[in-house]
């Protein structure tokens, strides 16, 4: 089984600890992980802002980088949603515009092999207890694309419930958007900030120490707001919790 890590540009540049944790977690579970260095951004920011043509080279690049791998694993539901939902659309539009089926073929060849981390763990590896240890109280925010586009359901919660020492607190209004939304966060900053405010009020109300998510872009938005307000609640990617063990526990950077 050839497995590639699709780290995503946000994790590569800003949250390398999440990508490192994903590697350590998968290796602990016996998976031989590779990181094809030709990979870059999936093109979602460009596409969702209205620059479809500008993201086409990134669609091609991503498909090329992961050619030949059986499974491509990504610690970001949003980037998986981009590949699974939008790559075929982008390819189909290019074909409709008379630019051949190359892009569509690349998109359709890649999409079924890309897995969000919790999908890969529960569906492909068939594990829920990954042997993690995390002695903290945690509340989980399911990001919208994982929740609604991928239909991750309770996969992340099942994984969290199996973590030794972890106390899970239910997040009220969990399925409501945190207000990140890519360039929405700056194009509609006031509404975005108001959404973060309400999401954080719910998260703080749980009394949890850690706000866990499976998309660092949402956590960047929520974490930036928490830091500005001087709150102790700590945003943390699910992969870092699952990578934490009794021998090598997670430590705040």
């Amino acid at each position, binding site marked *: 089984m050839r497995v590639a890590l699709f780290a995503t540009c946000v994790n*590569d540049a800003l949250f390398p600890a999440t*990508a490192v944790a994903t590697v350590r977690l998968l290796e602990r579970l016996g998976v031989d992980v590779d990181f094809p260095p030709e990979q*870059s951004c999936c093109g979602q920011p460009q596409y*969702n802002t209205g*620059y479809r043509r*500008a993201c086409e080279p990134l669609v091609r690049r991503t498909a090329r980088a992961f050619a030949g791998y059986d499974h491509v694993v990504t610690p970001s539901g949003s980037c998986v949603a981009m590949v699974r939902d939008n790559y075929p659309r982008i390819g189909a539009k290019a074909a409709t515009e008379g630019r051949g089926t190359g892009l569509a073929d690349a998109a359709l060849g890649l999409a079924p092999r890309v897995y969000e981390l919790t999908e890969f763990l529960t569906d492909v590896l068939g594990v829920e207890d990954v042997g993690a240890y995390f002695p903290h109280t945690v509340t989980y925010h399911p990001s919208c694309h994982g929740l609604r586009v991928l239909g991750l359901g309770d996969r992340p919660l099942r994984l969290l419930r199996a973590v030794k020492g972890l106390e899970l607190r239910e997040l009220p209004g969990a399925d409501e958007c945190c207000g990140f939304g890519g360039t*929405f966060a700056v194009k509609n900053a006031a509404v975005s900030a108001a959404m973060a405010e309400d999401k954080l009020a719910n998260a703080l109300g749980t009394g949890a120490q850690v706000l866990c998510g499976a998309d660092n872009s949402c956590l960047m938005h929520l974490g930036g707001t928490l*830091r500005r307000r001087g709150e102790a609640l700590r945003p943390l990617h699910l992969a870092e919790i699952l990578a934490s063990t009794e021998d090598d526990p997670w430590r705040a950077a």
Partner: protein
Amino acid sequence: MTGTFLGMPAFPQAAERAVRDGQLRANLRHATHTIRDKRARAVAELPDWAELRAAGKAIKDHTLRHLDRYLVQLEESVTAAGGTVHWAADAEEANRIVADLVHATAETEVVKVKSMATQEIGLNEALAAEGITAYETDLAELIVQLGDDRPSHILVPAIHRNRAEIREIFAERMADWGRPAPEGLTDSPAELAEAARLHLREKFLRAQVAVSGANFMVAETGTLVVVESEGNGRMCLTLPRTLISVVGIEKVVPTWRDLEVFLQLLPRSSTAERMNPYTSLWTGTTAGDGPSEFHLVLLDNGRTAVLADQVGRQALRCIRCSACLNVCPVYERAGGHAYGSVYPGPIGAILTPQLRGTTSPVDASLPYASSLCGACYDVCPVAIDIPEVLVHLRERVTEQGGHPMERAAIAAAGYVLDHPALLTAAERLAGRTRALHPRRLPGPGRAWTDTRDLPEVPAEPFRDWWRKNRP
């Protein structure tokens, strides 16, 4: 659409004002969450909701694909049943037709059933310019009309008002439009409803002409359908001598069997009811029963152009239930007025720019009035993929030359992202200079840093960790 909304500011500016209005936010939060939860319960009762939703989508798609055929069939059926059909290419033509029909009756007043189509074309204003007064009879529309206000929701246009504000509007303004509010009116819902009843009753009993829209039109029999909760619609549709219905061409369904699907989908999605209290259906005219004269004005007003867009056309499936508004986190905080249109919320953000174009500041900003969270698509009873259409329309906005700075930035970032050596160099540079990074950014970056810290750039990107640790 109506001139009332001309010159609106772009969505972000209007929304920012709404976000700062604590009372408005509290009103909207309470109202949207209440109806959102009720809808979820009403929908969960039906084991075949997914199949109903798929059927609704399929019926609408089929009808839209053969709209030419079904509209002609509808015209024949309505005409055979004693009605008269008029075709209006745009708002101006529709308003002209209605005004002329009212003039022909020599009346100067009409009572109105709640209708989005007539708001879209600015009918009330057009009639006023012709010396004809249009009285809104839906309770929420009455509140909006008396308050010289604008609607902020498709189903509950006065959702932004609380009952203390409504009491004030009734007490101050009812006398200008007819029977004044009772002395000593309080803000108890029963008293407010009674005041509206008394005020409206004299209009129902006096009016000789009614203007309505329709939720559905059945092509096979020429039957029009209005669903409502208050009974004001039933009064308007049965008491006057002349009935004029202005209906968008996308409201046609082929058969009564098709109608059955929508009569299940609409009330549960809209008011969270199993069935709405009043469903009025009429077919042309019937001697001695109801209006003796019936006119149907079929309205295009941009719909044919929307139909030509392969991605955007799904917006024409909309049955105006407003479930997408009630579940939208952006609508909940920005309120309906920020959308600068009679169609607010997610559906408005895809319908308005298609019907009006994307040239004005507000229209060009509407496709961006969403975090693309997808909650709207989930609840839509006819499965309109609103996020897909939003992104499609964003492309239209960028292609018409909007956002030149952004286009340049996207191109530059695209180049770096497509050249991993450059990307790595940029990441390393950011890592090495991280002690110098400011906490707050100047210029456009302030939109992020006004309320959020920037993430701390790590000492090395993941690429470098991998190179060192997994050689």
